[in-house]
């Protein structure tokens, strides 16, 4: 009996001692564990316990950057994957750089694994990147603002530098997909040319080249480059139904630029039809012998209508966008 008491006492003592040890040695041990984890994978995935131990529990001398996300396909978070990729780039850049130390760790919480963490931090959205400083509680500025900074790795690195004074030089794994695509395209074209080496007549087809050039012009003139750089919505959904034309002259929607390209194209087609109907530029003999007068007259009238109507439409769209523009033609 006494022996038993002793045993219990010893056990209790041992446990107590272990407990005390973890508390006392906690910091070193934690850092050691985190370093080991980071060595395996540069982003530590956190569940509730780990989150509490490593991120929330007080003895810390390291900063923790945690991404809260929902990667499961069922959550249908398209942006999460992008953010994860960029975040991984940053974490890897830090992990394999010379300034790597154990003052900064990267972590990740998936909603499906740690929904209680989301509740604890009162997070309703994902993805969120938060910084947990070594001392004190996270301030509002410690969660990153994607709206303003963007989601690029450079932006994340800059934000981390803001918060922790650790300057991470983002090193992207070289992206060969562009080069591969171009090489494949070249190979395809070269192969195609090689296969048809006995019949390269199509390369001298001026109509094809002219068509391609015109396509390029329409693309540029309708502001596709602006779309590419600014990334506007396809069209705007408002309460009163969809809006296809942006009201201001400094913005446009993707659909709007397609409409404009189509309008431009119709005007050009109309004008070319008129010219061809009237005899074309160089070889009017061919046209004259084949098409009789009535048909040519008809073609000419159709061309004229195309030009006038579609140009007026273009003008009225422009007028709707430009404040105080006084002129219009056919339509208001």
């Amino acid at each position: 009996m006494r022996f038993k008491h002793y045993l219990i006492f010893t056990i209790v003592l041992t446990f107590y001692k272990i407990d005390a040890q973890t508390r006392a040695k906690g910091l070193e041990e934690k850092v050691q564990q985190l370093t080991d984890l980071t060595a395996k994978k540069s982003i530590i995935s956190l569940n509730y316990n780990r989150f509490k131990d490593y991120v929330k529990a007080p003895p810390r001398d390291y900063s923790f950057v945690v991404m809260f996300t929902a990667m499961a396909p069922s959550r249908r978070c398209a942006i999460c994957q992008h953010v994860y990729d960029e975040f991984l780039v940053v974490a890897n850049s830090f992990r394999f750089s010379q300034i790597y130390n154990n003052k900064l760790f990267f972590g990740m919480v998936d909603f499906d694994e740690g929904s209680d963490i989301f509740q604890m931090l009162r997070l309703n959205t994902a993805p969120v990147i938060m910084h947990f400083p070594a001392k004190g509680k996270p301030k509002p500025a410690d969660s990153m603002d994607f709206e303003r900074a963007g989601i690029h790795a450079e932006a994340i690195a800059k934000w981390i530098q803001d918060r922790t004074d650790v300057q991470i030089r983002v090193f992207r794994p070289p992206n060969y997909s562009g080069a591969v695509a171009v090489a494949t395209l070249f190979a395809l074209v070269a192969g195609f040319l090689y296969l048809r080496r006995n019949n390269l007549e199509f390369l001298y087809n001026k109509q094809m080249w002219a068509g391609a050039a015109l396509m390029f012009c329409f693309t540029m003139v309708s502001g596709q480059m602006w779309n590419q750089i600014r990334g506007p919505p396809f069209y705007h959904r408002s309460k009163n139904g969809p809006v296809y034309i942006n009201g201001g002259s400094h913005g446009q929607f993707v659909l709007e630029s397609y409409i404009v390209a189509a309008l431009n194209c119709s005007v050009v087609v109309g004008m070319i039809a008129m010219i061809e109907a009237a005899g074309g530029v160089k070889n009017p003999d061919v046209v004259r012998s084949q098409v009789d007068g009535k048909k040519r007259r008809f073609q000419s009238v159709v061309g004229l209508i195309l030009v006038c109507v579609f140009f007026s439409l273009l003008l009225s769209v422009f007028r709707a966008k430009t404040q105080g523009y006084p002129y219009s033609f056919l339509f208001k």
Partner: protein
Amino acid sequence: MPATAAGKPVNGPNKGLFQNTAGFSTLITVTVLTLAWLAGFASRLFAVIRFESIIHEFDPWFNYRSTAYMVQHGFYNFLNWFDERAWYPLGRIVGGTVYPGLMITSGTIHWILHTLNIPIHIRDICVFLAPVFSGLTAIATYLLTSELWSRGAGLFAACFIAIVPGYSSRSVAGSYDNEGIAIFALQFTYYLWLRSVKSGSVSWSICTALSYFYMVSAWGGYVFIINLIPLHVFVLLIMGRFSQRLFVSYTVFYIIGLLLSMQIPFVGFQPIRTSEHMAASGVFALLMAIGAMKYLHSLNPKGQWKQLLIVGGLTAAALVFIMVVFLTYMGVIAPWSGRFYSLWDTGYAKIHIPIIASVSEHQPTTWSSFFFDLHVLVCTFPVGLWYCIKNINDERVFVALYALSAVYFAGVMVRLMLTLTPVVCILAGIAFSILLDLVLKEDEVIMTQPEPEESKNLYDKAGKVKKRTQEPLPPADAVLGMNVRSGTLIAFMILLMLFSVHCTWATSNAYSSPSIVLASYGNDGSRKILDDFREAYGWLSQNTAEDARIMSWWDYGYQIAGMGNRTTLVDNNTWNNSHIALVGKAMASNESAAYEIMSMLDVDYVLVIFGGAIGYSGDDINKFIWMVRIAEGEHPRDIHEADYFTERGEYRIDSEASKTMLNCLMYKLSYYRYDSGGSPPGYDRTRGSLPGNRGFKLTYLEEAYTSEHWLVRIYRVKKPDEFNRPRIPLAKRTIPTSNAVSKKFTSGLGSGVQYDTTSKRRKGLLKNKPTIVKGKKVGRLE
């Protein structure tokens, strides 16, 4: 434009009088070109008529200042000019950092006029230079288009370019900038290049090189020429259109153009040291290789030469390419500069060069600005392109490449709309000319053969001219019928009329504001001129010391130097990013931190633009976020962009704004003592809110001047002895003797030296007095 419309009927009545076709068409050409010149000139005068003969905006002020310097001190002194008034304390070697073509052009005109005893002020030459050159551009475009298609198309193109807003945006009276003359040089160089390719004569190539030299001296956009011409040659080689003419014209042009372009101090050795110019030398080497192989071929015309030629050409091309890449890698050739690189990689500038991204004309182009600048031309120029490609020859390859590259660049950057406009005018001119030519020619065949005297008034000039140059069609062609033809004519006349009224409207409303004089319109249509900028700059020049240093954001550097004649820290020649960032940091810091920077930079006055009282949106608070960004790029430890936003990421100035924002120097200088602007006094009409920090006091600065509508505010930076200085032990106290401050008073009085000595004597007197208190008082008074 009225004159374009007027240009059309001219040929009708004249027609009967002149049976000599050549003389007749020359007369028409001259008349139309003269009218186009006049119309172009007249349509650019809105600013002069509404305001006065004044230099516009920012960069023109620098150009004007250096032109005036050159006229006063001579060309060589201008080349050696070290401007210690800019970029204090660094200074700027102006002669080596400008394209001097603009100054030389107006200086030459000034010299000629004065030799002829016509006393005209250099300012008026500067103001009217760009409108005059627009006429020359029209003529150059006419020549270029006639080389490409026909003289009728040329006349159309000349009329278009004379008034099109895309070009008049940069060439209204008073906008005295490089682009004003550079577009002329661009078009003229291209014309001469096509001439030399057509003729293969050395003299035309040398003319091309000379014109290219003028372009290099005038504008940094010469890089467009030195890449487009080699591209043309290269594409011709690929198409198998190598010829001796091409060989002669390109080699002569390249060598002479290279040597000449290196004579411009600002360009220097760039043509052989930077990637932007490498295409030209690569094509030169390739052309040489192909020329050599052709020569070998001509020695022995038999055998497997054709295959050897192709293989040899490909090898040569590959060799040249690898060579250039290798040299770039070795660092012999500088890689693409950021400004050019950002044209290809469109996201580059936004991340790496905020100072480029911050300028609004470096943004991509929406379709509505294409339409605004080109109107009907934007949907007709593809027709011209279509027919140019379908009837291809050596010259039309050039115009197709010109159009495709220019339309790409214009899509990337609003500013490069300027290089697109000429080629759009050319191609649209061709399109209109083809159509109206056909429509009118049939008319001609039916009507003129029975009785030539009857046909009047219906004809368009272009159709008229063109008819003479091409072989007439047989009468069997007349199938379209009268109604269709006249319908077409009327419709297209309406389109052209819409175009001309649009051009006038756009030039008048969008491009004719001098931006240093503002106008506001009352409800009854009365106009009120706000002349705050000149008022404030005038105050600076009259009331501050000669060598006073003014700190402001870089936008206003040229204006302060040009109108106020004072030293600036940064200006629109944004060559030193870290210096600009330092100024940005000063503006973004709180008062005491800013004072440290300002005393480090010897700043005497700070100038801010504040539009809150009149609702002027281009003021410094709206630009402020760029100052923060640029400062953050250089001083990431001290400035954080996020600090200037609210917690929700909004940029505000009212009571919800962040603390950093409310206490930074720019904020304080803008809203200090501000009580104007509407119903609650102190309401900011630009931002539409009430400032969050009001009624504060300034410690380190004092208000020196505020213009009538609060637009320009100038503050004097106090000397260290002027604000709550710490108590100094009795023994260490001295009376200050050096006095920038007292000078400021004396310069106002106009008798500097005398007054200065008396004040010194008075000081000496006080110093000898035993009581310290009085001495201190004098120090304060000063």
